[in-house]
């Protein structure tokens, strides 16, 4: 795996900008919010206007403020669970990949079990058992259940790195085991760790919102799922209050898209074949467009010459 640092493509840039916006809102959303998201007012069920950009709820709460304030909880749970799960995934994946024999097999089997067991029902059940689960608790639960996929990827990669000559060379040199894992192997896993982190963040965000939407998580803090929970509960659909659930949903989709776009870029680092190699069409001398494709190398200027041809 060679590292050629290149300017990220358009897709990745869009993803990063979107993520930056949401991160900004996570920190300053409450300060920017024009209203207290929980405060009632007399503007009941109003459609978007200059006063209430995203309209109001059945008790006159400002939805725009709810979204702004709710960003923090979403981002917090996403990133905290993402970090927790990634740490577990790295520890489990790399150890099980580096250990040979039954110990490695056993750890790998455990993570496969965790992948196959349906995650959301399990999380719903566990959070339901925990009393007054706040963001912290939810993030912990998601983190502790969402590591398996990343561990599996990291294990596979570690297994192949372990066989690589540079690891063998470090061993033959007398390098200690923890240094081999930490200094020789781990840096080579950066891209995969990043990719599995982003994947887990996505999973955590979706899960948290789903939990809030079905009303399992505590109602202490605002988040986008909470907004949707109230919208659903108050029959927003039936009364045509589209503004109640459209902004939250769009925010979720945008956040998800931004993470997916960033992951595109990481995928291209991990798998060079996915790189777009810049231009994919070339213009031949006679002005036709030819596509670069496997099996049919484009010819820019066949010489017009000498016999043959047709």
């Amino acid at each position: 795996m060679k590292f050629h640092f290149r300017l990220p493509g358009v897709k990745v840039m869009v993803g990063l900008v979107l993520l930056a916006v949401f991160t900004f809102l996570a920190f300053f959303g409450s300060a920017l919010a024009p209203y207290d998201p929980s405060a009632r007012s007399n503007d009941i069920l109003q459609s978007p206007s200059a006063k209430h950009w995203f309209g109001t709820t059945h008790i006159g709460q400002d939805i725009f403020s709810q979204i702004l304030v709710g960003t923090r909880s979403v981002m917090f749970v996403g990133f905290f669970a993402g970090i927790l799960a990634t740490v577990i995934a790295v520890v489990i994946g790399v150890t099980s990949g580096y250990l040979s024999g039954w110990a490695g097999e056993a750890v790998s089997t455990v993570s496969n079990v965790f992948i196959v067991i349906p995650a959301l029902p399990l999380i719903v059940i566990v959070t339901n058992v925990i009393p007054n689960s706040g963001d912290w608790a939810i993030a912990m639960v998601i983190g502790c259940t969402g590591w398996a996929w990343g561990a599996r990827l990291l294990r596979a990669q570690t297994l192949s790195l372990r066989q690589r000559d540079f690891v063998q060379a470090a061993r033959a040199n007398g390098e200690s085991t923890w240094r081999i894992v930490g200094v020789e192997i781990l840096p080579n896993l950066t891209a995969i760790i990043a990719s599995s982190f982003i994947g887990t963040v996505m999973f955590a965000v979706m899960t948290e919102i789903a939990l809030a939407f079905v009303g399992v998580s505590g109602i202490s803090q605002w988040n986008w799922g909470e907004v949707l929970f109230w919208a659903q509960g108050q029959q927003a659909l039936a009364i045509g209050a589209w503004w109640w659930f459209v902004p939250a949903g769009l925010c979720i989709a945008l956040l998800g898209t931004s993470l997916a776009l960033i992951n595109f870029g990481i995928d291209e680092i991990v798998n060079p074949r996915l790189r777009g190699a810049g231009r994919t069409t070339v213009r031949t001398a006679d002005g036709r467009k030819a596509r670069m494709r496997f099996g049919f190398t484009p010819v820019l200027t066949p010489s017009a010459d000498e016999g043959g041809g047709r």
Partner: protein
Amino acid sequence: MKYFAGRVGFYLLTLWAAITINFFIPRLIPGNPVDSLIAQRRGEIDSNAIKSLDILFGLDKHQSLLSQYWSYLGQLAHGDLGISFQNFPEPVTSVLGSALPWTLGLIGTTTILAFLIGTLLGVFAGWKRGTWVDGLLPVTTFLSSIPYFWLGLIAVTLFTGVDSWLPSSGGYDPGLVPGWDLGFIGNALRHSILPAATIIISSVGGWLLAMRNMMVTVSAEDYITVAHAKGLSDRRVMTKYAARNALLPSVSGFGMALGLVVGGTFLVEYVFSYPGVGLQLLNAISGHDYPLIQGVFLTVTVAVLAANFLADLAYMALDPRTRKEG
């Protein structure tokens, strides 16, 4: 067949893990849910049912954990999952029995459909890399980032209403009696169109992307160049050489991803009040119906394992290397 034996062993292990999780979770619940149920339903519960609930929740404090575990396993082996608190006095098994066909029908079919459609489009997108098809990727990425349930909400808003042919909730019209007659089946199908479309639209993107990336990866393999050099038609190279190989990781990934996918689709049942297992689970949670929660979790795990088994069979049929003799 070694591969096969290994997989079956893995399923048994996973099943055991799920059962064990199920055994421990209720033991973490604060308070005594059974007592409150008995208090509510004074005199209506027979002693057998109370005993089975005690086993389920580990309320018989005189027993060691190990013997509790054994009685729990014994009870499961008889197919006794306790009685549902909410649907009292119906046993959990019968509640699940009536919900499961709906879920299997809706989620099973749509998941497979989404996989097939996504994979097919992915084959195409990967093969035509560098053309306009690439433009579809951001769109499908966006679509697959939308939570299932939110897409469901939007679908309900846009396509249902007083004068719409598409119903907004339920699995069939309330007046009908479930049965194998044309009228009922037609009605049920009509109810499933929107939830099915929701699931398909939001999950197709993931399969598409996975397959597309595999196609791109496989396209650079030597045997694809050989196939081109052999002068084979584009179609044959795409199907018999590229797609056939790219499919393998997708199929094994399909089995692995089911656990994630199924969880997401439950919320669609919730949005559409579709009478499946997912709706039962959410209702059970809001009603603190612990036996039902456990039952649902176990059932879903078994269903996912069964689906995994099918995916494994497909994989073995597709990859000659797993059929290795000796």
